[in-house]
């Protein structure tokens, strides 16, 4: 699972094989399980995300 831009966690190397296998398993199941989100994701991919993010600026709360 790569969740950093440029580097892996230093303790992560020996676990990389397991993580890759797990990630592949995740992806397989996700294709069925998560297809329900596809329409919303496609809309987001085809819209102006930067404009959306600018309009989402809000006052900080508690």
């Amino acid at each position: 699972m790569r969740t950093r831009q440029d580097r892996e966690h230093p303790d992560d190397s020996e676990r990389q094989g397991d993580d890759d296998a797990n990630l592949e398993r995740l992806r397989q199941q996700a294709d069925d399980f998560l297809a329900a989100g596809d329409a919303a994701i496609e809309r987001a991919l085809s819209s102006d995300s930067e404009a959306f993010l600018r309009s989402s600026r809000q006052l900080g709360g508690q």
Partner: protein
Amino acid sequence: MNGHRHRTPKICGADIELGNFIVGSEQGGRGAEAASALLAALHDQVGAVSDWRSAATGADGGPRNRRDWRRSHFPSNGACAYIDLEHLELCLPEVGSAWDHVAAWHGMLGQVQRALVAVNAARAPEDRIRVTVNNGDGLGNSWGSHLDFLVTREVFDDAVHRRPHYLGWLAAFQISALVYTGQGRVGSHLDPTVGYQIGQRADFLETMIAPQTTFRRPVVNTRDEALSGRSALGPDGVPLARLHVICFDSALAQVSCLLRVGPMQLALAMLEAGAVNPERCLDDPLGALRRWSHDPTLAAKATTIGGASLSAVDLQRRFFEDATRFVEAGGAEGQVPHAERILAIWGETLDLLARRDWPALASRLDWVLKLTLLERTRRRAGLDDWSSPVLKHLDHLYGELDPETGLFWAIAGQGGLDRVVTEREIEHLTSEPPADTRAYGRAMLLRHVPVDTIDSVDWDSLRFHLRRRHRVERWKLDLGSPLDLTRDSLGGRLTGPIDGDRLEALLLSLGGEPDPWRVSSAGTVAVRVTTGDDPYDGYTTTI
């Protein structure tokens, strides 16, 4: 074990802010407009009794106070909604069980979801209101998803004022609970190398302990105000307090939602029993929070004060083992409903986390489900760079409340997510209050007492006025203990219209008292003169 004399049921409330904004308003700044329109639509939908004292407007027609604006209470389920710093804030009815918390939360979300659909139906597409169930805009601003737990005054004072190891133990528990309470977040404003992190709030917790909630937010919040009043006593005369827990994220997945509350109830019961192992304390709690949140592979370690190097899951496992022994010894009896069931789900989730069983975890934890969606999109769309605005956009869409655009609702609608409450249980707490806390009495009084008789509603009191022939009497009903005014304690007393003499008799039977120095609507002061210990034994006059 250095226990306390008193214990109390771990009643739980919540005050949760939503994100709200208007599409097309690219400079921001229309959050108040969005929240106001949404709250009005919510009122239209569910009906509410408003405390208009806090709705007073300033000279410019806007709210006089941007905090706690237009507070209104729902007779339907004992909940409350208002606007706080331009965010719609939902306050759940106080519940005894973690399962009721899940049902009440999803019930409230359903109400806001229906209000959102209704209000947007009358708006132009380019002017739609968007609502997100999350804790930040990704632009450096955060808002809260707070829980409120009933504890004894004794253990509150110990944890925040007297016993540092209680504080350290509580902080270590809350910080490591990130692995099942986090909603997940793209990026970090503290570390540009972080692509995805577990917690939405983690980067915004900057100190260990403090009373404030809007800046330099603490892991353990010491704000000591009324969920129960400062002088509140439980049924056995036990002094009570409210512990305000501000460090957790908003949860949508039902298991995440349950695990925000159940293990915390057990942890607080352990604190009251003195079942505190100081070896669980972290050497650098805030450092551990950052390290663990920034590493969704769950490999990152942090050091306890005893020198053990542990992952967040490792430390949670140790808390879980301590809690299991505590429950098996009967420590949670009378304080935490369904303690064994909480342990079962908590332990099972920790097992899955230890195995990194992502597919199974995606059906129960928000941060894993969100990451799964994002990884899938990255692969399909070729988005290698986590800084892509598309991924941040999808981060927001995960928690978006609109059923047509919200990713969580799209997945949940397919029935693939683990559930802990049924639709029937959610519907029940959408329209009815929990039976085992003061939320029941509050809701029933709001239903049956004429609204023009109610002066104000607050968590720990209700105020009424009774119109007499030549005077107005003000009355106050103290609700300091969340354990009072339950359905069982009220019997059948709150049925049918309740006003005039019947209201006075009811208030007296519930411990209500004349409120002698409050100015009447006629501009006079109604004074209740008592001639004995019984407040009813006297007369009222005006001056």
